[in-house]
């Protein structure tokens, strides 16, 4: 043991080179361990089959003016409302400086007739009511979240209650006048 721990014949230069060798080995080993860790971590990310379903196409031709549908996109509901003239007017008429999360209606729709939003309350993730006929639509003619009483208007903006932000607008494109691809 003694002979091992006292490299009596080594020059300092030599021991410096040897230290470098050890650090290099540790470094390369660490790189290897990290490259092994990445596929393990990455395996928990959305897989190919999940990503393949990440966009859906919706046929809008069956939705009458004044009604709304719920479709499932990425495991969450998306509300698509065919808005009436009155609802569009209401949404546009709001003074945005009075809003909790100021956004104009024009920023939230591509085509004023169609409001497309993710139907998950931005407070704690409940599903707001107001999509199906006869459900309470809150004080602002939009949606009402029963969990903690958030009121959303006909543009899906938060008007009253604990939610911090407006209902999210997913990325979507109109493929034709009556079909839209969400995602």
């Amino acid at each position, binding site marked *: 043991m003694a002979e091992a721990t006292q490299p009596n014949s080594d020059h300092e230069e030599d021991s410096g080179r040897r230290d470098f*060798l050890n650090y290099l080995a540790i470094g390369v*080993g660490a790189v*290897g361990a990290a490259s092994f860790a990445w596929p393990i971590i990455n395996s928990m990310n959305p897989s190919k089959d999940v990503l*393949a379903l990440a966009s859906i196409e919706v046929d809008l031709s069956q939705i009458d003016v004044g009604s709304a549908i719920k479709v499932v996109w990425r495991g969450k509901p998306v509300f698509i409302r065919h808005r009436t003239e009155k609802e569009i007017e209401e949404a546009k008429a709001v003074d945005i400086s009075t809003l909790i999360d100021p956004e104009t209606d024009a920023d939230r729709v591509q085509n004023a007739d169609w409001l497309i939003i993710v139907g998950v309350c931005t407070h704690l993730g409940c599903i707001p009511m107001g999509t199906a006929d006869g459900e309470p639509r809150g004080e602002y003619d939009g949606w009402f979240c029963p969990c903690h009483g958030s009121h959303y208007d006909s543009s899906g903006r938060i008007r009253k209650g604990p939610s911090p932000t407006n209902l999210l607008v997913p990325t979507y494109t109109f493929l034709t006048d009556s079909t839209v691809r969400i995602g």
Partner: protein
Amino acid sequence: MRKFGLSIAAAALLTLGVSSQASAATGAHPPTTDYSFTGFFGSFDRAELQRGLQVYKQVCAACHGMDLVHYRDLVDLGYSEDQIKSFAATFQVTDGPNDDGDMFDRPAEASDAFISPFSNDKIAAASNGGVVPPDLSLIVKSRANGYGGIGQNFLAMLQIKGYASGTDYVSHLVGTGYIEEPTLEDKMVCMPQNAGETDAAYKTRIEEHQAPPGTYFNKWFAGCYFKMPQPLYEDSIEYEDGTPATKEQMAHDVAVFLTWASEPAFETRKETGIKVLLFLAVFTGLMIAVKRNVWRNVKH
């Protein structure tokens, strides 16, 4: 000590060899072909894959499904997303129930799995003389039994032959296996001699063996009499790329395509493997230096 080391090494080699011995040897193995996907750097030939897909679509898909492969996977074959989308749209898939509670047909999308020709196994069996045509997603991988003996398999493994023995089997089964008037030699290939059977008894047995009704002689099918009629004939399809559609060409292409389908990650796997082995070679070299350095003053 050295002898012990040698015997351990021999043990390891033998054990590795033993492990891969094929399931009960079913006669001779089809001749081997050199495929582009063998070896450390081998990869699939895109043209072969695309032609193979065409053979699958126009011939095999009439009876065989491929449930584990999705249209979206065809990007690997060199198709663009739009091409895949329009390819998928040529198939109808049953979806539903819709809001009225009815099932409905819609064009397939890229995210759908390959459409099966039969909606369930019972229909499949009823339309095919009582036998369900097997799903082809894993056909090559599940037939890659190797090349026979322990030694041969071990050498093939070192040459990174991968699933080539399965590709050979599938290719020859549909390409060269069907023989209308088999000779005794042909029959001996698919009907091996039983243990303890005399040569004379064996000969009489295979000479007298009659083809069961509804079967077709196939030299590479264990037991000789195959329920699948010959699927490929000269020019039974017209290749989009103009390659002459000989029986062997179609068999080769579809077998390569099915090899890809057995493991779409095949090429990624080998590319990653090269990098990993290079890295480990460097790391091993470094560790040899470190170890020598650490032990330099110890007499042992």
